[in-house]
């Protein structure tokens, strides 16, 4: 559907130029909910603006349904944007805002009116049709911005941190709303966020970015369970990193000497080398007998967090390790600070990373 092919974006000239996008390639499918996830300043907006046509990449190509769109100005691209600050036209009513795109496309008045009604119903804003943007709350403006961008039925909808400005409760509502709109319209959504939880719950696939590069593309499950880089593992969810050694037979030696068959990366990793294991805190359990467990450590601290309790341990090699356990009054636990405990986990849930 949409193919971004090795684009580079530089701001400024010569050796002092800032490289905002460095060899970025991604292919996004029809009707996909695709998320660009990464910390602030990593180039998400730049990639979105390149697709919309407000930034012209220095190198590379962007194709939509096989056709190169880089030569087209923004107003000729069948792509609409929901801007980070909504950018509603303050001098027009809600209905005029929503109808603007269709009007510019030269659609007959009757069709514009009908589509505007449809769109306002879709985002539940029919009652507000004659208000001005200044008379709406943040969440309502958000809905109008969505309706305005959806009205011309674009092939691709770009959403730049669209939910970031909303408070938590409204944000959760809008997340569900967005998913509903996406499945009802079948339009491809490219959604930008720096919130990993939002990305995991909403997306069909996620591209994790940092410093102008795409680090990994995959489904939320792939990204979470099988991160390919330390950055990805660290950025998404809470993580334990454990130093280990990989052998030629594919087994991994843990601090303390236990050997396990962990999940190896797709690309072969050279054997007999130090590697890092990624182990998620909620995929581990504490055991009273340290001798039989894969890892062991001394319990340093216990932090109660309502639904969970976090157990902070120090491993034999001095590294910190967190075990998360769901609280259940029916199964009380008796771990003492300073006690040496075993840490158990499914070997396949431990992901091997190079280095």
């Amino acid at each position, binding site marked *: 559907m949409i193919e971004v092919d090795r684009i580079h974006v530089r701001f400024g000239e010569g050796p002092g130029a800032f490289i905002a996008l460095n060899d970025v390639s991604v292919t996004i499918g029809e009707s996909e909910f695709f998320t660009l996830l990464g910390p602030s300043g990593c180039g998400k907006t730049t990639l979105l603006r390149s697709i919309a046509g407000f930034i012209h990449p220095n190198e590379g190509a962007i194709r939509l349904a096989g056709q190169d769109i880089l030569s087209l100005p923004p107003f000729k691209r069948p*792509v609409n944007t929901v*801007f980070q600050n909504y950018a509603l*036209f303050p001098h027009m009513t809600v209905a005029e805002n929503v109808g603007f795109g269709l009007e510019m496309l030269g659609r007959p008045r009757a069709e514009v009116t009908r589509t505007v009604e449809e769109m306002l119903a879709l985002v539940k804003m029919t009652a507000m049709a004659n208000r001005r*943007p200044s008379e709406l709350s943040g969440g309502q403006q958000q809905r109008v911005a969505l309706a305005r961008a959806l009205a011309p039925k674009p092939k691709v909808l770009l959403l730049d941190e669209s939910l970031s400005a909303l408070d938590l409760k409204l944000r959760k509502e809008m997340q569900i709303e967005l998913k509903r709109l996406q499945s009802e319209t079948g339009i491809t959504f490219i959604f930008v966020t720096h919130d990993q939880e939002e990305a995991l719950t909403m997306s069909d696939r996620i591209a994790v970015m940092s410093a102008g590069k795409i680090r990994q593309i995959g489904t939320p499950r792939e990204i979470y369970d099988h991160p390919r880089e330390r950055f990805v593992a660290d950025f998404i969810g809470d993580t334990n990193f454990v130093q280990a050694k990989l052998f030629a037979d594919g087994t991994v030696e843990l601090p303390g000497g236990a050997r396990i068959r962990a999940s190896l990366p797709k690309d072969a990793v050279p054997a007999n080398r130090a590697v890092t294991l990624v182990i998620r805190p909620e995929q581990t359990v504490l055991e009273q007998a340290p001798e039989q467990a894969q890892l062991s450590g001394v319990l340093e601290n216990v932090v109660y967090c309502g639904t969970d309790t976090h157990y902070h341990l120090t491993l034999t090699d001095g590294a910190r390790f967190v075990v998360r356990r769901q609280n259940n009054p029916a199964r009380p636990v008796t771990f003492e600070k300073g006690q040496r405990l075993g840490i158990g986990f499914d070997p396949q849930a431990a992901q091997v990373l190079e280095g």
Partner: protein
Amino acid sequence: MAKPKTFDTRRQAGFTAIAAFCFIVLYLPIVLMVIFSFNSGLALTSWEGFSLSWYVTAWHNEVVQAATIRSVIIATVATVVSTLVAVLAALVMGRGKPFRGRSAMFALINQPLMVPEIVTAVSLLVVFAWVKTTTGYSGLGYLILAHSAFCIPFAFMPVRARLQGMDQTLEQAAADLYASSWQTFRRVTFPLLWPGVLAGAMLAFVTSLDDVVITEFVKSAGQDTLPTYMLGQMRRNLTPETNAIATVLLVFSVVLVVAFFFVSRENHAKAQL
């Protein structure tokens, strides 16, 4: 709830006295001028009774009529021309690609504010005198041209301020929604710029209407505008007729300013996001 004590100029010693003094210096002469426009006698300083006779005299004075018409024609054309130029210049400087000579252009537009008016007046006199003798044309064109030029910065400043305060993503949003550059300008940029344009036009109009120095130097014989007519009266014998004309001009500009205030406030309310 007690308000925290902050620095407040109004509570400083002597503030009221200074404010009152400034107020008197600025407004008392105007009040006196207005009062004496209703004087029935000839004098500007001794009150002889209330009358509207000087307004009637001014109204029927053919020289005043001609000067008024001339002033309005010049101000109207100069307003249209200078506002057009100002809007184009503001757009080129605020929205166009950065280009060489942008600051030179800025300096050019603001020339009338930086060069003393008398200098501009003398240089225009010299140039126009030469053009007059070579072409033989001695109509209102010279005054209109001069006024159009010196009104540009007054029309330019509010337009530029408005454009700088405008959210550029609105124009991008329009382009994103299939509006061509022209449609974006017509449907988004211009409506949002409009209060600035209106303010600029009003400023230009008032500036032109009020001008003495350049007009005095550039005008040919029999081309008095209202202000130069009033100046001429002073050289002969000043009567309350001049007060009456000045009062009408005062009322006109106050009405203009108040009208502008309401227009811009309404627009501001509409544009608040």
